[in-house]
C-alpha cells in the first residue's frame, strides 16, 4: 500500500497534547456530521456511505504518470465533499483513514485524530465550501472552482500537518512548511486534474446525482464561509510560516502553547528568536483584517453573481 500523499502521520511524531487536541476537534466535528447525515439519509446512511468509503479507498489507487517517474493520485476529500455533501464526505473520509491506520498502519492510532482532521475534515470543508459558492454558475466555472478547491484542500492538509509537526516539536516550522507545501503543490495538481475530470464525467452521465446528493440536504451557506475562511487562513499563514517563521513561533510561545505541547517530552527550549513580538502581532492583525475584507468582497461578489445567474436560468 502506498499513500497518495505523504500526509499519513505515524504514531510517535506528534506530542500527546497535540494528538489530543486534534482528536477533540475531530470528535466534535464528527458528532455534528453524524447527526446531520443521520437526518438526511436515515437508514440508507450505512450502506451508501460504507460503499462510498470503499470507493474513495479504491479511487486512491487510480494514478496516472506525470513526468519523471512520478504519478498523479487522488486523496479524494474534495471530490467526496462535492459529490456526497460535506458531512457525508467527512464520515466517509474518516472511515477510509481509520481503515488505513488500523489495518495497514498507514498513519498512526493516537494521531488518527490529526490525520482525519488534515485529510478528511479540512479537505471536505474547503472542497465543498468553495464549490458551494459557485453552485449556480455555469458548468465550466464549477469545474474550474472544483479543481482549485481540490488543489487548495491538499495544500491545506499539508499545511496543517506541518503545523502539527511543528507544535509537537518534531520539525522546524520553516523547513517543514516549505517541504510540505512544495511537495504537495505538485501532488495537488494531480488531485485537481482528476477531480475536475471525474466531475466532468459525472456531469455528463449522471447530472442528477450531483444535484440530489450534495445540495438538497446540506445547502447551508455556512459552508461557503467555512471553506473561504479556512482557505484564507492557509493562504495567509503559510507564507508567513515559510518566510517569517519567528512570528508564528513567537505567538505560539506567548500563548504558552509550545511549552505546554512539548512538556510531555522533556525540557526543550523553543527555537524561536525573542524579537519581533510586536511586529508579528501587528502583522497578524493586519492579515486578519485583510482577510475579512477579502472575505466580504468575495461574499458580495458571490451573491451578485448568483443573483445574475438565477435570472439567467429563469430566462433560459
Amino acid at each position: 500500500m502506498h499513500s497518495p500523499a505523504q500526509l499519513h502521520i505515524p504514531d510517535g511524531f506528534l506530542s500527546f497534547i497535540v494528538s489530543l487536541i486534534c482528536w477533540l476537534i475531530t470528535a466534535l466535528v464528527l458528532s455534528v456530521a453524524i447527526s446531520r447525515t443521520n437526518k438526511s439519509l436515515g437508514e440508507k446512511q450505512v450502506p451508501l456511505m460504507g460503499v462510498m468509503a470503499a470507493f474513495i479507498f479504491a479511487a486512491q489507487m487510480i494514478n496516472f504518470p506525470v513526468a519523471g517517474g512520478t504519478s498523479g493520485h487522488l486523496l479524494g476529500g474534495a471530490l467526496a465533499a462535492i459529490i456526497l455533501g460535506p458531512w457525508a464526505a467527512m464520515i466517509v473520509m474518516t472511515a477510509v483513514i481509520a481503515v488505513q491506520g488500523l489495518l495497514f498502519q498507514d498513519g498512526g492510532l493516537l494521531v488518527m485524530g490529526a490525520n482525519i482532521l488534515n485529510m478528511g475534515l479540512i479537505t471536505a470543508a474547503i472542497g465543498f465550501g468553495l464549490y458551494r459558492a459557485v453552485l449556480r454558475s455555469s458548468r465550466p466555472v464549477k469545474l474550474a472552482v472544483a479543481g482549485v478547491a481540490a488543489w487548495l484542500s491538499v495544500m491545506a492538509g499539508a499545511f496543517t500537518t506541518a503545523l502539527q509537526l511543528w507544535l509537537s516539536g518534531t520539525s522546524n516550522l520553516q523547513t517543514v512548511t516549505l517541504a510540505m507545501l512544495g511537495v504537495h503543490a505538485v501532488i495537488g495538481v494531480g488531485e485537481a486534474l482528476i477531480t475536475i475530470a471525474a466531475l466532468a464525467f459525472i456531469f455528463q452521465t449522471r447530472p442528477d446525482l450531483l444535484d440530489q446528493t450534495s445540495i438538497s440536504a446540506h445547502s447551508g451557506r455556512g459552508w461557503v464561509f467555512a471553506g473561504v475562511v479556512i482557505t484564507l487562513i492557509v493562504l495567509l499563514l503559510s507564507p508567513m510560516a515559510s518566510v517569517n517563521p519567528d512570528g508564528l513561533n513567537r505567538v505560539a510561545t506567548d500563548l504558552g502553547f509550545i511549552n505546554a505541547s512539548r512538556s510531555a517530552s522533556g525540557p526543550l527550549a523553543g527555537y524561536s528568536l525573542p524579537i519581533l513580538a510586536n511586529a508579528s502581532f501587528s502583522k497578524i492583525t493586519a492579515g486578519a483584517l485583510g482577510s475579512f475584507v477579502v472575505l466580504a468582497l468575495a461574499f458580495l461578489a458571490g451573491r451578485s453573481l448568483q443573483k445574475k445567474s438565477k435570472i439567467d436560468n429563469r430566462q433560459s
Partner: protein
Amino acid sequence: MHSDAFDRYHHGQSPLHSLDPRIKVIITIAFILSNALLPDGAWIAFLLAWAAVIFANAVSGLGVAFTFKRSFIALPFALAAITVLFSIPGKPVTSYHFMMWDFTITDAGLLRFVSIVIRSWLSVQMAILLVAVTEFPKIIHALTHLHVPRIITMIISFLYRYLFVLTDEVMRLLTARQARSAASPGQRSGGSVRWRARIAGHMAGQLFLRSYERSDRIYNAMLSRGYKGDLMTMHPHHYHTHDLVVGVLSIAGLLIMQMAGRL
C-alpha cells in the same frame, strides 16, 4: 483478486489470538499512548517497551521478529523530523558541509530525533501485532463496545466488506487502460499530461457511478432481508476473568515503564 489479499490476520491458536479483542485494542492504544508520554532519552523505558513488543511477539506464536520485519513502513516519515537535528540549540556533535550550507547536528537535536524515531518504531509494531492476531471485524466490533459511534463502526465494516469488491473494479479499470495504451518502441504511450489526467478522472467518475449504483442494490438487498438501520452480530463478546487479568497486568506494566522513564 481474492478477498484475503488485504487481510493482515495470521491465523493461530496462541493466547494472544484468543484474548478478548476489547482488551487487545485497549492495551495497544495504551501502549502507544505510553510511548507518546515518555520523555526524550528515556532509554530504560524504551528498552522496556521494546522488551514488551518482543514478548508480545513471542506469545503470539508468529515468531519473535514478526513485527520487526514489518516495522519500517513508518520510517520514511522520519524525514519530517530530520530538521530537529539541526534546529535545537545544544552542543555541536558533528557538522556537515553541503553545497553552500553548514549543517551542525547538536546533541539535543540528536536526542530528540532518535527519541521520536524510536517512539514511532515501537508504536507501529504493536499496531501491526494487533491486526495480525485479531480478525479485523472483531477489532471493529470491539471498537463498538468501546463506544466508538455505531455509525462509524458500521460504515467501517462496510468499507472493509466492499474494499475487495471495489479494488477488483479498479484493477479491471487499470488493466483495461493498460490494454488500450499500447506504445510503439521508443515512444511513450498516451497523450499529454492533461489527457492522461482526464482518463484517470474518467476512471474515478466511472468507479463512483458503479459504486453508487452498487450501494443502491446493496441497500435494497438489505431491506429485503429485514434491515432496519442496525447491523446484527452473531459473535457477541464475552470476556473472562483471565482477559481482565491480562489487561490489568499490561496497564500496570505500562505504568512501571512510565516511572522508569521518569527516573
